[in-house]
């Protein structure tokens, strides 16, 4: 916790609203997983998707590839997404519900995981990191905690119709050219078609400026210079708030776990997850 860091606050024990209005559970949570052939002692990885995606975006490449490399790998579909229940209540769903879903998934793991969040899932992951002692935190093209109003303005300049739709509560456009740079058009189209609706409340919540308490685990931030949803400047600012330098992957789009070059990104993530200090011994951030 560096003093004067505008995105940091002190440890928060008092959460009266969480106690009096707890997130209501949904009946089913989809968790895609793959286990290494034999125990390796490497920490489990839990992957959290962003807006309109679901566990499949990690299940496609990363979950099996990471398991092959010795990591017990899990990807969760947040409520209302993929195979998880809650689609009916999606319009009432808030970010705190996603935090609840991830916390629940963590308690089902055999030991504290490395949490990997993509885009809005990275925002959720940071909110989890201030509540739970993670082994490590990986932020892929993270939606900014310091309000994504800048990203929205950029989207508005780029694609005014998209911005308008998001403002009135429709799901942000997940067209292939927004998500991918290197993929062939058919694959890119197929992935784009798999995205689903998003909660308007969650999208609007992205405009909030949030602070998180001390995060005591190591943090890795990954961005792409050509990202059309989260501006590189915002990725940089997120990394700054943790006192780390982002790792950049050129030639890729926003969906770094699917776009051509996903294996290079995964290499970086797994190298980070391999070198983590024993649980809880990292310095305070």
């Amino acid at each position, binding site marked *: *916790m560096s003093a004067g860091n505008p995105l940091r606050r*002190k*440890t*928060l*024990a*008092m*959460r*009266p*609203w*969480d*106690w*009096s*209005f*707890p997130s209501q*559970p*949904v009946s089913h949570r989809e968790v895609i997983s793959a286990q290494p052939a034999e125990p390796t002692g490497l920490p489990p990885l839990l992957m959290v998707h962003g807006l309109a995606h679901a566990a499949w975006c990690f299940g496609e490449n990363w979950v099996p590839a990471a398991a092959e490399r010795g990591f017990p790998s899990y990807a969760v579909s947040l409520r209302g997404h993929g195979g998880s229940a809650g689609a009916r209540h999606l319009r009432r769903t808030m970010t705190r519900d996603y935090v*609840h879903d991830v*916390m*629940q998934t963590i*308690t*089902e*793991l*055999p*030991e*504290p995981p490395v949490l990997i969040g993509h885009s809005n899932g990275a925002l959720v992951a940071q909110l989890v990191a201030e*509540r*739970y*002692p993670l082994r490590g935190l990986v932020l892929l093209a993270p939606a900014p905690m310091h309000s994504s109003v800048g990203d929205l303005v950029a989207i508005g300049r780029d694609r005014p119709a998209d911005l308008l739709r998001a403002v009135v509560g429709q799901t942000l456009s997940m067209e292939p050219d927004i998500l991918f740079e290197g993929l062939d058009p058919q694959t890119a189209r197929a992935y784009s078609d798999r995205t689903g609706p998003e909660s308007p409340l969650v999208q609007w919540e992205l405009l909030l400026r949030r602070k998180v308490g*001390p995060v*005591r685990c190591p943090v890795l931030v990954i961005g792409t210079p050509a990202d059309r949803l989260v501006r590189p400047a915002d990725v940089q600012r997120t990394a700054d708030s943790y006192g780390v330098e982002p790792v950049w992957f050129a030639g890729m789009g926003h969906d770094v776990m699917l776009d051509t070059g996903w294996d290079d990104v995964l290499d970086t993530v797994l190298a980070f997850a391999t070198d983590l*200090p*024993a*649980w*809880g*011994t990292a310095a*305070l951030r």
Partner: protein
Amino acid sequence: MSGMARTPAKKTGPTFVDRGDAWCVVGAGPHGLSALKALLQNGIDADGYERESDVGGNWNFGAENSRVYESTHLISSKPFTQFPDFPMPDAYPDYPSHRQVKEYFGRYADHFGLRKRITFGHDVVRAVPVEDGRAWDVTVRDRVSAQETTCRYAGLVVGNGHNWSPKIPQYPGQDSFSGEILHSADYKGADVLRGRRVLVVGAGNTGCDVAVEGAQNAVHTWHSTRRGYYYNPKYMTGRPSDQVADSLLALRLPLAVRRVLFKTSLGIAVGDLTKFGLQKPDHAFFETHPIVNQQLVYYVGQGDITPVKDIDRFDADGSVFVDGSRADVDLVVFCTGYLVRFPFLEHEWLNWKDDHPHLFLQMFTPVYDNLVVTGLIQPDSGQWTLAHWQGILIARVAEALRTRPALAHGFLGRAAAEADRRYSAGARYKDSTRHYYEVAHQDYLRALQDAIHELEVSA
């Protein structure tokens, strides 16, 4: 030191081990577990000791010192009660049973790898400050082989619980009573009540539970209480009532306003208790530990429970109450609570006055910097959210003692001055041994949060 898994001495090991910078945590109930986890999580090596063969403490149903009974359920709902970093499963109900609670502690211990840090089946027989109070020699005894081992630790966390040593009252003529007398400590289920005339003494949550089970199983039940109480329902407006209550706290409504709102809503939900023959409460709301029991008033109304006053004396057939009425009974269940005991520590080390310890934040003694008591609180809400933050504070103190002693001593230096501070959120608790450890959860948690901030300041 951290990360080096030096196994604490087992029964075949040496009889003295210097564990250097490591801390010792006594008890693997919820408070011991959370303290152990917080220490390890913050890079402080630590060993746990537990007399039983499993974690759970009081919730380890069937263990010698467990005080839960067959039907025990939580009386505070999940969000307040769970460890904030390890929520109870969605599949659990609002008020889980003691079996689910124990399973939950087991999962917590497994998830955070705590079991391998705990030596089970060992009693702590004594703990002695050494090296001018800079370390503690903790002697443990294997409950099977009776072999004793002593380990030296940099600090000692005591989480041995405060609900296990029964407080048994003595009334005139009690020895001449021909029926059976039981303390709730030995009450495990309703079987013992079946077909008998039962007198239940005490209006704690256990007393009310046992009275209700008496109504369901006994021939007849008398329920003796010193005073009238408020009986809170478990649900209001379809929500756990503690969640409703905390909405008012979240709005930071003052005590007087909350009292009016509570009395009004209880008046609508339950009504005038004196109409059921119950005593009128002699105190304002929030001045006694809350009773959460929706069924007691119902069974009083059905005539299965006869509310009676304080006991004056016993005779061979039953008991006579202070108003001269009497009840002939076969069984007396004293639900009269527990005494706080630290059999392995000297009382003076815990700032002991008027038969109970006086501790800063209910945790820190002015006598030793590295002696901490955890779990010596009775919140008006769930317990283990507080257990978690007590654990985090213990880790911060241990960390500060090691790396920033000036900060630690500045903080702990207030222990003597603040040992008598109460965290009652403005209410004045009824003076009874029952309320020595009572805390208003919001007030106490804010104090813990402030203490954690103080020690985090220059991190």
